[in-house]
């Protein structure tokens, strides 16, 4: 189905689902009102005009979790809690219709072709040694986030930034642990009494204890009252920047490769 036919179908569904017959002007108004709602509720994660960011881009003809209008209504109404998408607020039927109309309209905007080549990007992934810390399709190390379905979870811009400046985009809300919006893979330096230092990423924490994984992927558990200092470093990442290790084309190719990873094992 061509993109235009799909959009025409979506518009038909919107008309059929509305409580009263809508004219074309109403449909345009819905998109405009929906854009205002989107810029308040959605833009932080999904990016300006739905171009993607910490959350996936929405300007694609087929949304993974919302391939049709009904599923899009459901996703907006209920969120996808296990993927970090909250239900930001309850919407009236009117607001929901407007937001759905706008999100569906995003795919009508012609999208630039991906700048990189995913196949070459796979070679960059191998050459750069990414697999030493990341699992893709079951293969690789587990120090960093698993990337098997990273293309479903993150937009290209976010992926690019996470390669050149990993500390700027530490993930949050994607894992069950520590959960509740806490930063994941947060670098922490623990200084023991006596001076020994342990550096790692936070696995979990409560009021009295903290659990880390160090660079060798070993677990450490500390009772806070028994160590000298605990320093959280939200402006750092255990992952090095690849801004100078890869050239611009390699970066684009790597982003294209990561964007192609959609959960297949």
């Amino acid at each position, binding site marked *: 189905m061509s993109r235009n036919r799909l959009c025409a179908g979506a518009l038909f569904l919107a008309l059929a689902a509305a409580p009263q017959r809508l004219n074309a002007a109403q449909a345009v108004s819905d998109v405009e009102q929906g854009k205002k709602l989107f810029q308040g509720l959605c833009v932080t994660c999904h990016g300006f005009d739905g171009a993607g960011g910490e959350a996936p881009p929405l300007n694609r003809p087929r949304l993974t979790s919302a391939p049709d209008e009904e599923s899009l209504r459901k996703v907006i109404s209920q969120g996808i809690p296990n993927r970090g998408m909250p239900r930001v*607020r309850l919407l009236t039927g009117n607001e929901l219709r407007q937001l759905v109309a706008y999100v569906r309209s995003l795919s009508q905007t012609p999208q630039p072709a991906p700048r990189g080549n995913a196949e070459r990007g796979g070679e960059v992934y191998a050459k750069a040694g990414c697999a030493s810390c990341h699992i893709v399709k079951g293969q690789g190390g587990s120090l960093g986030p698993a990337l098997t379905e990273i293309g479903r979870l993150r937009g290209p811009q976010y992926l690019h930034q996470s390669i050149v400046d990993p500390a700027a985009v530490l993930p949050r*809300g994607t894992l069950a642990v520590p959960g509740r919006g806490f930063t994941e893979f947060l670098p922490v330096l623990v200084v023991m009494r006596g001076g020994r230092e342990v550096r790692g990423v936070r696995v979990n924490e409560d*009021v009295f204890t903290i659990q880390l994984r160090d660079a060798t992927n070993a677990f450490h558990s500390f009772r806070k009252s028994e160590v000298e200092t605990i320093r959280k470093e939200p402006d750092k990442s255990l992952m090095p920047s690849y801004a100078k290790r890869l050239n611009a084309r390699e970066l684009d190719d790597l982003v294209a490769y990561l964007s192609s990873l959609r959960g297949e094992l």
Partner: protein
Amino acid sequence: MIHRFGALSTTVVLVLAMAAGRVAAQVPYQRIVRAESEPHNWLTYGGTYKQQRFSPLDQINKQNVSRLKLAWAYQIRQAGIVETSPIVVDGIMYLTEPPSTVTALDVRSGRTLWTYSPTIPSDVIVIGSPPVNRGVAILDDTVFVGTIHGHLIALDTRSGAVRWDIAVGDNKQGFYLTLAPLALDGKIVVGVSGAETGIRAYIDAYDAKTGRRVWRTYTVPAAGEPGADTWGPSSWKTGGGSTWLTGSYDPELNLLYWATGNPAPDWNADDRPGDNLYTDAVLALNPADGKIKWHFQFTPHDVHDWDANQMLVLFDAPVGGRVRKLLAQANRNAFYYVLDRATGEFLAGVPYAKQTWAEKLDAKGRPIKRKGIEPSLEGTLIFPNIQGAANWFSPSYSPRTGLFYQGAREMGTVYYKGEAEFQPGTAFLGGGGRAVNGDEAWGAIRALEGTTGKMKWEFKLLSPGFTSLLSTAGGLVFGGSEEGNFFALDADTGQPLWDIQVGAAVRGIPISYAVDGRQYVAIAAGFTMFVFSVN
């Protein structure tokens, strides 16, 4: 000091009753009035009518709390959020389980004596909170529970058999009950939830023997009534003002104190100009007829969902050179208030958590609001968050230290304004919010001077939680965390003295009691009621 006469007094009462040829009522009203004289029991929601959640027991204290151990545990039958505050009477614990179940346990063994679950319709409407229950009331030989389908049910204390069952509000309209009822002299007082569906809320009193309604006081005045001019022409009809948390009572002044919730719709005030009385307020009522004696509104014209349904704690303390009868509340809007509970006079008010919505309180306690705090289409970041700096969870006041212990939530929300569309029994919100959570939010347990709100110490928590607190004559403050820590702090300094990881967020409300000469501390967390003691 442990009082060992609990079991003895029961025996004596039983013998006397048998001699008289009848069984005496188990918990007559006068026994609740004098609850402080029997600290081995926990006779009403906050321990006494003052709702201080303070235990005079001191067997568990600063010296031995490090040896606190699990005595027994009880597993909740149905998964859900457990926010119960148990009642303990003469060796029996009455607790509630989600959504509206009542269970009686033997406090010596933790074994179940009876359990009762009302039939909840599958299409029950609960909009505005999770389907929780915070506890029962007991009076004479009857236990009273409010339900999420809007009923008040009276149960026999010995068997759990239903004595009566009445509808407090129409659940089809969005009325439901989560609070522990309050038992007065022959009456059971309850409030309702449902502002998020645009109900017009009220406080009701029912005859404890029959379930007949004695009085009803609306929290939103109708057209022509005093205060109606603080609403738009018809917005009072859907004005909210829920009454979903247990009130307090002063038998000497014969005044009942009840807090009210947010106006509806929550985040869009276009159709409700004015202060929106009596939302986000405390009402002092005559318990005989429900007439309002005085009121104090904490958040006039609320647009952030800052219900004033936090505990109203009563204590007497010197202010301005003389001992006064005080009412204190750490409000959801992040200010701590002290009022004269005889007159409603504002005596003190200071922020106890970060707030960005008010310049200050004026001399009468009215907030001077900042510009640009209203929810908007693009979002407006304001502190405190939607769930507030405080919420339903209980603070504690210790008459030994004069300190008001409060769990404080340091968190902001991006508030959004939206459409408000009233249809009975559906969400009537007009917006919402996005919490600023994770590592950017945190919490604390703060000890405030009771008469001024000045902070004496704080104990930091990893995240803003929903921790209720219990202070004791043993010099301890018990509290919990969202990460599953349950702990005891030094009531004078805030230093942690004992803690345990219980495996799930601590949402239960702690109490203390004694039986057979041993003090216990009870707290629900996750799906379990934990009871601790020192060997």
